[in-house]
């Protein structure tokens, strides 16, 4: 077991696949520098820099996957998917359906995502709900280095297209790249346990959630950075006698409905904490699967509601922060919402007590 920062874990999973399988290649903008390690180890034919033509190179990756390669394609930020969506929507996602499973395209699309470092509304979106809305795609959003390794390993082994999103607050390199720029004059609310941790090198099955904390009163369903916010909120809530279960979805699609239902059945209260846009996305879907199952629950969600504002205090208020989560959970309990002040300095999220996850037991450490 090795301690790694988030992107080390991702790169390690890719490197191991590249060693095992000559067909695995990496391509995208700036990958020779951004993945300097892989480039140094596998050379420029397998770590292929591309022009700023995301539409064409993602489309080409679909073709390459159809013709026998297993590409890991990088688009710098999920926000930029707008210029390349067609390759996902009408090609990668539909090939298996169109051919009744006779032709598949094993492809991993790796993108950074997420806000919290003051970069404006075109560089901090989550958009996993939008992508998960496309039948035929898998979409994963790890919250720890261990899961990052495990999900990338499963993504690389999967025969269909997988979207792999890494949050910029979790990845040292991205955050330094677009957030700090080497400055020490700014602080970021980086979840420590998400940023660096032990890596067990176990694959994480696509579509398997992990229980990060057990509790009886409210189920917090979350993913990515928000998992850590949810854990911090759960800690605060515990001190006021509210016991929260925290479920880390890890995969958006396929959604681990069974784990959600199992937890909600016990708690009867469901709070979705989702950094993506609130409307028409993941939070609604979670509500729907619970309602379809006929489980009566009290439901609320803490999400991003609108275009993310640039100013950091406005951004912070717009994202699912600990205060908003605590307030929403209290409301769900029927308790009058109390003002809970949040520490202004860099919050280092303490991992919740390690708990048996539903499918893949993992401790956050």
């Amino acid at each position: 077991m090795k301690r790694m920062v988030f992107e080390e874990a991702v790169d390690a999973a890719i490197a191991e696949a590249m060693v095992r399988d000559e067909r695995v290649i990496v391509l995208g903008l700036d990958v020779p520098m951004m993945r300097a390690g892989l480039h140094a180890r596998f050379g420029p034919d397998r770590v292929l820099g591309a022009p700023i033509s995301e539409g064409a190179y993602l489309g080409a990756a679909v073709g390459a996957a159809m013709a026998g390669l297993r590409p890991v394609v990088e688009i710098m930020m999920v926000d930029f998917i707008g210029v390349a969506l067609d390759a996902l929507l009408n090609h990668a996602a539909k090939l298996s359906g169109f051919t009744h499973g006779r032709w598949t395209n094993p492809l991993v699309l790796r993108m950074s995502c997420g806000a919290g470092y003051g970069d404006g509304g075109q560089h901090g979106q989550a958009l996993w709900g939008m992508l998960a809305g496309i039948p035929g795609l898998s979409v994963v959003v790890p919250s720890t280095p261990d899961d990052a390794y495990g999900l990338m390993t499963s993504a690389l082994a999967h025969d269909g297209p997988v979207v792999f999103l890494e949050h910029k607050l979790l990845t040292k390199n991205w955050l330094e790249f677009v957030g700090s720029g080497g400055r020490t004059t700014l602080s970021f609310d980086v979840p420590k346990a998400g940023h660096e941790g032990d890596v067990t090198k176990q694959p994480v099955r696509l579509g398997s959630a992990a229980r990060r904390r057990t509790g009886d009163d409210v189920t917090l369903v979350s993913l990515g950075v928000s998992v850590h916010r949810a854990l911090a909120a759960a800690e605060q809530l515990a001190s006021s006698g509210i016991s929260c279960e925290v479920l880390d979805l890890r995969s958006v699609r396929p959604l681990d409905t069974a784990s959600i239902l199992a937890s909600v059945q016990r708690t009867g209260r469901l709070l979705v904490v989702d950094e993506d846009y609130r409307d028409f996305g993941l939070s609604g879907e979670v509500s729907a699967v619970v309602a379809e199952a006929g489980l009566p629950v009290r439901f609320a969600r803490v999400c991003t509601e609108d275009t993310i504002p640039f100013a950091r205090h406005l951004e912070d208020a717009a994202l699912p922060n600990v205060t908003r989560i605590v307030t929403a959970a209290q409301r769900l309990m029927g308790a009058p919402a109390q003002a809970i002040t949040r520490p202004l300095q860099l919050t280092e999220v303490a991992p919740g007590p390690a708990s048996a996850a539903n499918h893949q037991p993992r401790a956050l450490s």
Partner: protein
Amino acid sequence: MATVDVETLYRSMRRIHAFEEAVRELWDEGSISGEVHLCHGEEALAAGVMAHHREGDAISCDHRPHGQFVARGVDLRAVLAELMGLESGLCAGRGGHMHLFSKQHLIATTGIVGAPAPLAAGFALALKRLQPGAIAFAFSGDGAANQGLFFETLNLASVWKLPLLIVCKDNGWAVTTYSRTVTAGDHVERARAFGFEAESVDGMDPLGVSEVAGRLVAHVRAGKGPAFLHARCTRLDGHFLGDQMVRTVRDPKANPDAGRTVVENLTARRGGRWTDRVRGLFRTGQAMLRLRGGLGKKNDPMRRPFALSDEARRRIDAEVEAEISAAVDAVSQEAA
């Protein structure tokens, strides 16, 4: 570079043509749903280019894919069955006319205009690594050549030096739009500006196409980088079967609603200035005339002279006829 004999080319064209005739009948009788874009007018082009296809090469097609599928030797019954939505279809009836795929033959189709180019670039990337010497073909239209994906692929294929031949089937039209009115510059010049080896050819002349395609394929196969073949052709059935504009041009009375709408609007009391209305009318008329001009028999590559004996021609025609009928019969029986 292999030279291709007339008989081979003629047979290939004839097969494509006869297949499309069969599809037309099935479509007319309602056995095929949705849009169907025939490639009548592209027979020579498809035959001439595909003559240089080798086992192991890959192909991407646009919404007008039949010519390539027939020439590639994909089981015609499976293709027909797919068009008819049968379980025995190439894709078990899930794909349809614009989504024909055969993994075994490395041939794929997309209904998104412009998308064949990046797809084939990806094929080329894979082949370059996995099967040196094999190349990828992308077939798409003059309309598609204004799509961002297309231009991006010109650049990408050039800097990655991909073994890719892009074939631009220039029939002068994109649905109801006369392409010249929305296309700046010249297709070949544009491709050359990206470092492509590029040539233009009369796409109705099978030997001419074959010769130039052969040269470009040899260039690509030799690893010298991508190439671009611009082939002028026609669209003898209009954009798709049942094309409204073609029906109107052929018989203005067939579509009285359209005429009425135009006249009512043209003469509406409130609207644009009269000069604007007249300019609009003039452009519409011009498009209609251009369209009618393109439908003429002189644009039919099947009517070009072939250096073949009557006897050889008859023999090939009969063989092809038998092949296609057998396929249609088999599939029709199954459908019933």
